[in-house]
């Protein structure tokens, strides 16, 4: 049994001929197994979708009732026989409802982990390690410069800034599914109990998180608030909104951005951020390498991201490794995170000489 007899990478995603399905296909297919609700992984228009209840609900919120021909919910740890293979879903720790999908045939197990992180997140089930023969991993932050550290420290930085600038508003750019809610939950865990304001784009998903019992404290749409009221407050918004006219309703806003990309200064500067917050829903370099080792796999497939470094690392560990070069993953965050360059004022000039 070769792994390719279970799953083959195709340009439109991983395909299982033996099971008759695709995982996170980037084009409409008959039968799709979806790892999580981010739109680069969960697209509308498939014939049949198998996913966790949360992922199905999120897809419904985003694409409407008719996002797929038919759907089937599967719980974490549940096993299902599809054709000649067995599949099971396991928490990926990425966002609410996110799953790794284990595909097994005749004692050979491949885990397609989707997007994942191996650190605590109060808004979703923690990552579960699934021992396997082939581990399919992302490599969004697959360079040893990406070490995300503790998100609590970043929240502390944000609260410190709010205390230093009580007359300014703080805008936190965050991906509207997962990151936004995690930032809110982290703020609550840090003892921040004031109203957190929301951009309209965050409303539905945030309400859904609350429905699922995730306590985010008092949350309000920013739409009705007056400019003066917003001094000293925190508003969560899509990163793109920070450079919109929309942001003019805030008094001298501090532009924070919660993303793993904020680890690299050039990336933060490129986006005109004044308060970068290194908070990521993806595994960092240490997370990726430790997870790969811990699965006990002998082979690694890298779906997307900085695959070159991770493949090099895997080879150094004596593992078989290859990049899959699946096109289309990682696009959504890029898209939502795109902020046009605002003009930056330069540094202080030297005192002019007479």
């Amino acid at each position, binding site marked *: 049994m070769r792994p390719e007899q279970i799953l083959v990478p195709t340009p439109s995603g991983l395909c299982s001929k033996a099971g008759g399905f695709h995982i996170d296909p980037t084009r409409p297919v008959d039968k799709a197994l979806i790892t999580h609700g981010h739109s680069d992984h969960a697209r509308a228009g498939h014939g049949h979708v198998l996913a966790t209840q949360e992922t199905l609900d999120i897809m419904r919120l985003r694409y409407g009732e008719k996002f797929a021909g038919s759907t089937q919910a599967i719980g974490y740890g549940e096993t299902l026989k599809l054709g000649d293979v067995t599949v099971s879903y396991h928490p990926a720790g990425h966002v609410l409802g996110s799953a790794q999908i284990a595909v097994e045939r005749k004692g050979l197990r491949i885990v397609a982990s989707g997007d994942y992180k191996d650190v605590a997140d109060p808004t979703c089930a923690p990552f*579960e390690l699934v021992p396997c023969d082939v581990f399919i991993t992302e490599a969004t932050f697959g360079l040893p410069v990406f070490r995300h550290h503790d998100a609590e420290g970043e929240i502390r930085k944000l609260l410190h800034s709010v205390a230093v600038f009580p007359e300014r508003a703080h805008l936190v750019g965050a991906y509207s599914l997962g990151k936004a809610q995690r930032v809110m939950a982290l703020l609550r865990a840090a003892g921040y109990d004031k109203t957190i304001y929301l951009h309209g784009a965050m409303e539905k998903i945030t309400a859904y998180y609350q429905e699922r019992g995730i306590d985010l404290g008092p949350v309000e749409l920013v739409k009705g608030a007056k400019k003066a009221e917003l001094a000293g407050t925190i508003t969560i918004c899509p990163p793109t909104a920070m450079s919109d006219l929309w942001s003019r309703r805030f008094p001298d806003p501090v532009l924070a951005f919660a993303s793993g990309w904020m680890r690299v200064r050039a990336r933060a500067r490129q986006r005109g951020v004044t308060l970068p917050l290194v908070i990521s829903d993806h595994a*960092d370099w240490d997370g990726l390498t430790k997870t790969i080792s811990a699965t006990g796999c002998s082979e690694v497939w890298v779906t997307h991201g900085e695959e070159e470094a991770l493949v090099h690392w895997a080879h150094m560990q004596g593992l078989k490794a290859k990049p899959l070069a699946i096109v289309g993953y990682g696009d959504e965050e890029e898209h939502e995170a795109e902020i046009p360059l605002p003009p930056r004022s330069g540094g202080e000039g030297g005192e002019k000489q007479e």
Partner: protein
Amino acid sequence: MNRFAELLDRLAYEPGRNNKIKLIAAYFRETEDPDRGYALAAMTGALSFRNAKAGMIRALIAERTDPALFALSYDYVGDLSETVALMWTPSPLPPRSGGEGSGVGGVGDSKEPPTPNPSPPLTSFVWGGGAQADLFDIPKPERLLRNDPSPTLAEVVETLSTLGKAQLPAQIARWLDVLDETGRWALLKLVTGSLRIGVSARLAKTAAAALGAKDPDEIEVLWPGLEPPYTELFAWLEGRGDKPVSRDPAPFRPAMLAHAIEDGDLDALDPADFMAEWKWDGIRVQAVAGRDEHGAMVSRLYSRTGEDISKSFPDLLPSLRRPGAIDGELLILREGRVQSFNVLQQRLNRKTVTPKLIQEFPAHLRAYDLLADETGDLREIGFAERRARLERFVAALDDPRIDLSPLVAFATWDELIAARANPGDGGAGDDAEAVEGVMLKRRTAPYVPGRPKGQWWKWKRDPMVVDAVLMYAQRGHGKRSSFYSDYTFGVWNGDDELVPVGKAYFGFTDEELTEIDRFIRRNTVAKFGPVREVTHDADTGLVLEVAFEGLQQSTRHKSGIAMRFPRINRLRWDKPPREADRLETLEKMLNSVIPRRG
């Protein structure tokens, strides 16, 4: 160090000046001595220690990382210090701190919450305080984290200032092991001497002043007598101590500067409120003398920016034998006549001061103002009163090397305009050529550091202008290396020959440069290496209107005249070379300094 690093990190992204001040002020409030003092020193450029070279940092990281992974990372990040800061793996590998990575550590047991970081309790934030949250209630992360092994900024600075070169790499590695990413980044920027954070010394001092709601100028005034880590300064700012007094018997006092006068400025001013003096074409200095604790006289000469230049002018120091501080102009005097700036330049250019040099270029101080005398500091009293004291001071000093810069008498602005136009008749006499313009000083103006509004104006003389003919052109350097951008020009002599009178390589626009360059290439009559001779006869050639600051006799030039600070004012395509100026015009200018417009 981590806390200082956080500040630098934040400052690097914050564009607003006032917001930067707030961030720095908050840091000063939250951070103890001596760390904050060293931070102030780092931001004002007052720290000096042996810098580490990039090669050393590369060698350190090479010991810890795989070369391929380093290359990929460096390529991605683009900055060496930052790449190393992010990639650095402490040795030996400790368990990962904080909430990261713990999910995998306990395989299958991921319900265990991650070990919290040793973080300060956030409950000490005051959220109920409304918009006026008290900054003093912000927790002091570094102090609360003091059980962490990372060095304080003070430890880093003090260690670096005593460390031998051989110990540097190992010490830096030890620090990198215990600092976080931002801390490592700031450390590497600091030790490699590349801490550029968009904060001027003035801004940092302004933030310090905000700590005690003081005027930043008060700090400027104190600054030359202060040293890192500035504990006395912070004690005073926080109301815990007296205002620091300089223990330096001959301290520098930050210079007061003037605004350039603009059209119409005079209309709004009453001549009766002002005094005027000549602005001499030398270098502005401060000559200070005072007694040390043993009663010995200490005398020093400072540049306008506070650099101690005493060593370059040992001939002047013995004349500073009365306690006081004179603001004046350093000039070269020969037989009682002020020499041109070019002559002074010749002395300034010499590295070693020899007796011969001193004899040939004797230094002289022409006094404008008195900032202190034996009774103490005079800066808070008005200029008119300081001037009166200066006159008494200089008279009592009675030294041939120090004289008083005379006031320019005027009752109306027209009289001042006339004096400025003709300093020789206006009172400058034989030294008129060394007059750069006039200074206008408000009688009541205290001596304030920097360039306060509405107190002092400088009013330079109009430049002198002649029409000259382009004779030779030479290629420029750098960006201009493909252009002929250095021009030698001449005027007609008594034999109707053009004689070179100067060389200019600026004053024109890029467009004009292109035009001149094209003219030169089309009208070259001879080439001498990088130099082209261009057509210059009575009917064909290019007339340049040349502006300059002064003229002097020169034996080095065939014309017998040298120009100061010549530049191209205008291109006179309209003017045939025969109508260019004649040497006799320049000779007249040399004798009479009445400026004219061409």
